[in-house]
């Protein structure tokens, strides 16, 4: 560990990984609840066009990616609202447009090849500069502040969009807030795990956490813990075993997910047993109507 911390580039990499591991699951929890788990993927594809534009115009690829991804996210939200039924096809069109645009534009930029894109496709956390760190930190604060400010509204929106409208909440504006926040998260995670794996850090820790929790808040906190642990663990593994950091982080998170599924199964069956013995001991249930079917997923 000490050896790793003596290296400047590793200190920067660890800092970036922790920030990403913390922020991605926060917005991811809302995306999963909203059934938009793949939104991060779509935005990632679009962000690639932004990276290429950055190279082409000689500006910062991260800044250009942030702008293009935010616009793309707004576009996706617009398509989702307007084209109700063919929403997924419209999203797919945007994904492919993003990738193709990125590859095409990077070829036009002087002194770059498609190989330049690889760093953004799969991440290259070891080449993170201190300027990048500042950028990532600013984005992280922005994302966390947005979620903190709109948290209650976002919970209602992601839980039940119709109820949100019946509360008079500005549903369109809040949807846009989620999409743009997700776009910023994608961009800040891009350098660490790459656009192809960004969505994994948003979704996998949440999927793992929800196996172990009964509340939204606890799921969110647990997902952040799993995200940070995966980021640190994956990066250390990559350092010592000399493997790709982005892939190591994501595979570690998937390992936690598998363990969480098993643990959640055991916990639920133990709890189910406790409940059935408790019910059997009590008086017979009153009423003539049999209980309706379980409303949710916990039918272990």
């Amino acid at each position, binding site marked *: 560990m000490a050896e790793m911390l003596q290296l400047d580039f590793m200190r920067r990499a660890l800092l970036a990984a922790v920030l990403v591991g913390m922020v991605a699951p926060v917005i991811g929890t809302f995306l999963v609840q909203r059934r938009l788990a793949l939104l991060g993927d779509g935005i990632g594809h679009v962000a690639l066009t932004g990276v290429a534009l950055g190279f082409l115009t000689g500006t910062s690829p991260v800044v250009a990616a942030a702008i293009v991804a935010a616009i793309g996210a707004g576009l996706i939200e617009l398509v989702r609202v307007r084209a109700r039924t063919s929403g997924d096809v419209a999203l797919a069109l945007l994904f492919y447009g993003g990738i193709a645009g990125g590859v095409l534009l990077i070829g036009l930029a002087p002194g770059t090849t498609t190989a330049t894109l690889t760093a953004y496709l799969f991440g290259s956390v070891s080449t993170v500069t201190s300027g990048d760190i500042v950028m990532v930190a600013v984005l992280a604060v922005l994302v966390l502040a947005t979620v903190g400010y709109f948290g209650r509204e976002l919970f209602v929106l992601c839980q*039940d969009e119709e*109820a949100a409208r019946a509360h008079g909440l500005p549903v369109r504006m809040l949807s846009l807030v989620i999409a743009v926040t997700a776009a910023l998260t994608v961009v800040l995670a891009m350098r660490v795990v790459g656009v192809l794996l960004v969505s994994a850090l948003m979704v996998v820790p949440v999927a793992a956490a929800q196996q172990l929790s009964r509340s939204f808040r606890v799921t969110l906190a647990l997902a952040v813990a799993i995200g940070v642990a995966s980021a640190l663990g994956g990066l250390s593994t990559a350092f010592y075993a000399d493997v790709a950091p982005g892939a190591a982080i994501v595979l570690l998170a998937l390992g936690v997910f598998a363990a969480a599924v098993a643990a959640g199964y055991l916990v639920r069956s133990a709890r189910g047993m406790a409940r059935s013995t408790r019910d059997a001991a009590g008086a017979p249930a009153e009423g003539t109507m049999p209980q309706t079917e379980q*409303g*949710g997923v916990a039918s272990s």
Partner: protein
Amino acid sequence: MSTVTTGVPAQDRTSAGAAPAVRVADAAVAYDSTTVLSGVSLEVPAGEILAVLGSNGSGKSTLVRAMLGLVPLSSGSVELHGTPLRRFREWGRIGYVPQRLSAGGGVPATVREVVASGQVVRRRRLHRATAAERAAVGEALEAVDLADRARDSVHELSGGQQQRVLIARALAARPDTFFLDEPMAGVDAASQRALARTVTRLSAQGATVVLVLHEPGPLEPLIGRSIVLSGGGIVHDGAPPRPEGDCARPGHEHVHPHADPDPASAALPDIEVPRRG
């Protein structure tokens, strides 16, 4: 229980001249050029318990959803408490109970979290819940008999209990105008009783309640006025149709066994309620 359902004109209970809780004028709704509602005009005075009855596909849910702006009108207008829907801002006065809990993406949420989310428009940003707000959540949970399940995930509850969670969510912000979309469909007897008790209490407090129902069922003694929709229009408006007349109505789907024929002894009969298809 029948004491609260005297059918006293609601104007007697509220100040004269107050705007009706809901005013619908010549409303029409069409989904993809298929007309679902047309020429519907209706006023719901403040304090009234109104049942919106009709068979499946008669447009009763659409009417209530149109009242809240959840489906757009193709013509006509809706006012809530005297304000056109577009300019209506007092959403804290509205409690909406949808047909069922939206499953969402599977992120768990506790009963308390969902119920507390009903206060979203009343809460102050970046502040924790005040004691009064927490008390309101506790009261709402008590009202539907779910206080002991507050820390459980809503996904672990039965359909009837989830329905009660939704009612508690509407109660938590203490609104005075309620819209309940088929609250009795597929709900167990205990949940039916909890719901009837809640509506009785709301009625006594002078709340306006619009109930979409497949049939009056156990709530019948509470209903002050009912409208029957058929083919997208109002075909009956007035006193609740008697069970005999109701069952004789053309197009009525008679799908439940008869309850005790004496309604006095069966204020809340444990009858089988048709389940949603």
